[in-house]
Structure formats: C-alpha cells, structure tokens
C-alpha cells in the first residue's frame, strides 16, 4: 500500500451513517472483532478477463490452487454418525470426507484404487467404503478391508492399497481439507477468523437450509458477485430503502498464509444513494418487514417515535426478543450490529462464513467439472442451536438447483430467494460479456474501496498460481 494514498472509505448521508459510526452508536458494547479494522490495502490493478474463461487458467488453478490450499469441504454436522460420508468435489477433483470415529474425521481421494471408479456420489453412510463396480472395500480409516477374488491380485500388498488420504482439520464445526501433504497447519490459513468468531462460535450453530446451485459463470465471477455491496444500487434496487450499501465497511487482513477480508453492510438505514432526504423511518419499518418475513404470522412492528432507542436499536431489540424466545436463548448482550447487519467474512480462496444474526449464511464457490464457464455455489442459512438442553437439530439436507432453476423454486428462504435470483440473473450475462470483450479492453476495472476485496483476492490468486 502506498503510504500517502488517501482512500475514501465509503459514502454517507444525513440519514445513512457509515458502518463505523453505527458501530460506535450501538446500544450494546461491540466486541473487539467488529471494532478492529483491516491491516492491508491491495495494489490497484486491472484484472485480465481471460482468467475467467481460459481452460489453461482453470488447469493451473487445479494444480496450484485446489491441490495446495486449505479449503472448506463440509460441516461436521453433515456427517453426524460414525460411517457417515459426503463427497467434496472441486472441478474434477473429488474427495470423500468420512466420520471415521466419534470425534475423528478423514478425507480420501474419492477414487477406487482398482480401476478408478468414484466411490461416493452423495451423502451416505456405512461401516466401510465400498466400490459399486467390483466391491473393493476399505475400512473407515482408509485401510484395505476386502478385495473379491483376492487370489487374482497376488501382487497387491494390502498395506500399499490404503486409500490415499489428504490433510484434514476443523474449526468451528467446519471441516477443511488440503491435498498438499506438505501444507502448513490449517491455523496458518484461518488468520483472524478463530479470534473474531469467539463471541459468535460457528460450532454453536446448525444448517437450517442448504442449497447448491449450478451457475453458468466461472467460479470467480460467482464469488466476486458476493464480495461487494456496490452492485446493490442496480441489482437489488428494491433493497435501497433499507440498506446502507455505500456506507458498507470493507476490511482486509493479510498475515503470512492467511488472506481474510470482511464486509459490514448496515441494515435499517436508507442507501446513501437516496440522498439526505431519504426516510430513516421507512428504512426501519422496511427492516422490520424484511426480518418478519422469516416468521410468518408474527405481527410486524413499526418505528416507535416515542422510544428512547434509535430505530436500528428498536429493530435489534425486537430481534433479540423474538429470536431469544424462539430458541430459548439469552441474546440480551448481542450488539445491534450483530442482530441486524450483513457481516460477511471471506477466507481465500472460496469460503464465506457470515457473522451474527443479521444474515447468518455460509457461502462456498466451486468450479464445476472442467468447464471454466460453469460453477457451483453452495448457500447455507444457519441458526443458533436451541438452548435449554434441546438436542442439536439435524443439518438440513442439500437442495440441488440446476442451471435454469431459480432460488424462488425453494420458497422456504423467503425474500432471500428473490435477492439470490437477482444476482443469478446477472451471472451468465457477465460470463457471456467478458468472453466477447474487445481484446484490447478485456480487463476489469475495480473500485478502490468498495471492490478492494476482489482486488485482494486476485492479488493472492496471482501469487498462488504464479500467473
């Protein structure tokens, strides 16, 4: 970062303060994580569009990125019992993640050592891993269990035929893998995340909805559509009345092998784009309506001009009470910002855990097969575990959405489905447009502040790939 460069860190209006000012004005004490600002600003550089559609670039990503980085594979709750397994597939690489003991997880290449059949196509369970072609079979720890007609494989030494295993570690109920045997520990890639999630532990939550959507766009196009709030003005124009898009705060933490970034988009204030005269009261009323959509039948409050609390604090207090009662948990100490705002962290290369109750999501972005024009986006909506000794609810099963299936075909997620469909409607257009760009102008120009997380992502990607 050039020391002398002064960057304008967002826009505000009379009724739309910057996220930082809202954190200062919170009705609760805000923890150190949300008050800590980033330590890094990437170099400003244009992004060649070829890297979004080049087959060669995708092949390089497979070799130097996906085979070498720590990457989120699944949640512990996805495989709750010993023997449960799920595939983790990234491009044409695939691994099977198994609960091999009550508190033990392992990941193996998802390929039979006999003739190469994929071993696990979807979530399943059993006492062994068994190939559907000729029944070659492995114990959950990866050691060879059985080969039918064993006499015919006299040259096969059982010890040499354990399933090839890859590194696996966990944090916050998230299971990460790294195929690189020489990889440093997971902690080196998590950076500030464990410390920043201490007061909102991810292992204290469960997956309430889980959608996996196929998208006709490169995985980086899909990822980058979710790293900034700059697109709200056009893509989600119906959210401007209650979303502080331009007042969003962006931060990056760069330390050794950890590449983390964050955005905080305030809710319950009008967009600064709407000007000083926009209605702060309408923003609060709309925030009430939006949050109430997740609770059908619940009366929708309105801004109370007699209350001593700010509009945002009123909505936050209502959310604390509603959620707290629903879950039998005490949320009294949670700050307004954690009850209302969209707080999204990003861990290079493709994992976004969200913080707090404003918008509790988990994103994962993956290449789909070997076509660089396709990707898969996995979206989870999480909820805190119920209190009062209630058992852990089971993780929601995956709902698959094909290329042309809209999120609105899964009405369970309410308004979110419209927001996702608005984003999805852009993605194939972006992919088509960038492939057809004037070769002399085939590069992306990024905003200095609002799109810095994309800039940072590409900086790290270039370093990782050496290209």
């Amino acid at each position, binding site marked *: 970062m050039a020391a002398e460069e002064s960057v304008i860190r967002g826009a505000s209006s009379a009724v739309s303060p910057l996220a930082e000012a809202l954190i200062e004005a919170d009705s609760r004490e805000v923890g150190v994580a949300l008050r800590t600002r980033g330590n890094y600003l990437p170099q400003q550089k244009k992004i060649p569009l070829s890297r979004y559609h080049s087959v060669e670039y995708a092949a390089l990503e497979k070799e130097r990125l996906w085979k070498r980085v720590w990457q989120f594979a699944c949640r512990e709750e996805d495989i709750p019992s010993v023997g449960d397994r799920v595939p983790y597939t990234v491009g044409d690489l695939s691994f099977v993640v198994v609960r091999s003991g009550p508190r033990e997880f392992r990941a193996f290449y998802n390929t039979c050592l006999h003739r190469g059949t994929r071993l696990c196509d979807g979530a399943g369970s059993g006492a062994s891993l068994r190939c559907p072609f000729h029944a070659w079979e492995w114990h959950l720890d990866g050691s060879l269990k059985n080969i039918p007609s064993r006499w015919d494989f006299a040259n096969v030494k059982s010890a040499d035929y354990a399933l090839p295993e890859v590194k696996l570690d966990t944090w916050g109920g998230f299971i990460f893998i790294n195929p690189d045997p020489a990889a440093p520990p997971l902690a080196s890639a998590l950076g500030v995340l464990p410390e920043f999630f201490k007061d909102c532990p991810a292992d204290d939550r469960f997956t309430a909805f889980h959608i996996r959507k196929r998208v006709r766009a490169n995985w980086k196009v899909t990822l980058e559509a979710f790293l900034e709030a700059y697109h709200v003005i*056009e*893509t989600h*124009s*119906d959210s401007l009345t209650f979303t502080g898009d331009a007042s969003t705060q962006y931060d990056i933490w760069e330390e050794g092998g950890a590449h983390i970034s964050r955005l905080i988009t305030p809710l319950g204030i009008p967009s600064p784009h709407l000007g000083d005269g926009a209605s702060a009261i309408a923003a609060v*009323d709309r925030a009430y*309506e939006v949050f109430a*959509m997740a609770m059908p039948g619940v009366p929708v409050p309105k801004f109370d001009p007699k209350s001593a609390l700010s509009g945002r604090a009123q909505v936050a207090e209502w959310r604390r009470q509603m959620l707290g009662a629903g879950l039998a948990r005490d949320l009294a100490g949670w700050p307004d910002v954690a009850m209302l705002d969209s707080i999204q962290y990003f861990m290079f290369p493709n994992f976004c855990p969200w913080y707090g109750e404003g918008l509790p999501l988990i994103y994962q972005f993956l290449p789909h097969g070997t076509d660089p024009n396709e990707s898969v986006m996995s979206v989870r909506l999480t909820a805190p575990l119920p209190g009062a000794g209630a058992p852990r609810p089971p993780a929601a099963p995956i709902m698959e959405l094909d290329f042309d299936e809209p999120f609105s075909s899964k009405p369970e997620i*309410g*308004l979110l489905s*419209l927001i996702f*469909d*608005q984003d999805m*409607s*852009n993605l194939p257009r972006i992919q088509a447009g960038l492939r057809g760009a004037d070769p002399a102008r085939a590069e992306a120009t990024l905003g200095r502040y609002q799109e810095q997380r994309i800039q940072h992502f590409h900086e790290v990607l270039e370093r990782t790939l050496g290209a």
Partner: protein
Amino acid sequence: MIPRVPGSGAGNPAGADGFIDVLAVDDLPPCSQRSVARGFERVLLCHTPAGIHAVADLCPHALQPLAGSEIKDGVIRCAKHGASFDLVTGKPTNGVTLKTLRVFPVRIRDGRIAIDAAAR
C-alpha cells in the same frame, strides 16, 4: 415516484372465487399506477385508456421493480433495462428478455379493484 401502499392487500383473504380486494378504483386515477404489497410480493396496478391491469411488480428480466415504468399503447417498458411487455398477456414485446411478465385477472365491483392472485 409511484406511491406505494405498504401492507395493502397483504393477507386479505381471497373470496370463494379466488379474487382478492386490493384497492379502491378512486385511488387509481386514469393514467396512473400503484404498487401494492401482497404478502412478500408486489402487484402493479395500471390504469390505462384500455382499463385497469394488474401485473407483477417485478420485471422478469433482472427481477427489478417495474413501478414507474412508462406505459404506452398497452405496453409497459421497464425503466431499468428496457424490457417491454404487453399488459394484457404479459408477453414480451421486444428482445431484452424472452420471459413473460406475470399478469393477474382484474375484477371491478362496487368501486373496488380485486385481482385473482392465484391465477397463473
């Protein structure tokens, strides 16, 4: 800016014939539009020389609100990216999108506008 009627029509029980009361005719003068909430969705009511039309207040091109868009000769053209639709059939009238705009049957009775929101 098109006046919006928050909550209007939301949760109104449908009659036996499926029609839901949404607005008084007097609140929709000729050549005006109004966006009314119906649960999570919004319906755009348009009073044109040909009569009163009800369409989804959501352009199927980029899923943006249609309210405030220009209406001419029974065709609404989205103010954002120019997709246009026949207000009677919902069919696109240019090539911005090939998707159809959702239209709702309208019934006028006793000075009230009702729509059949369940109709597809």
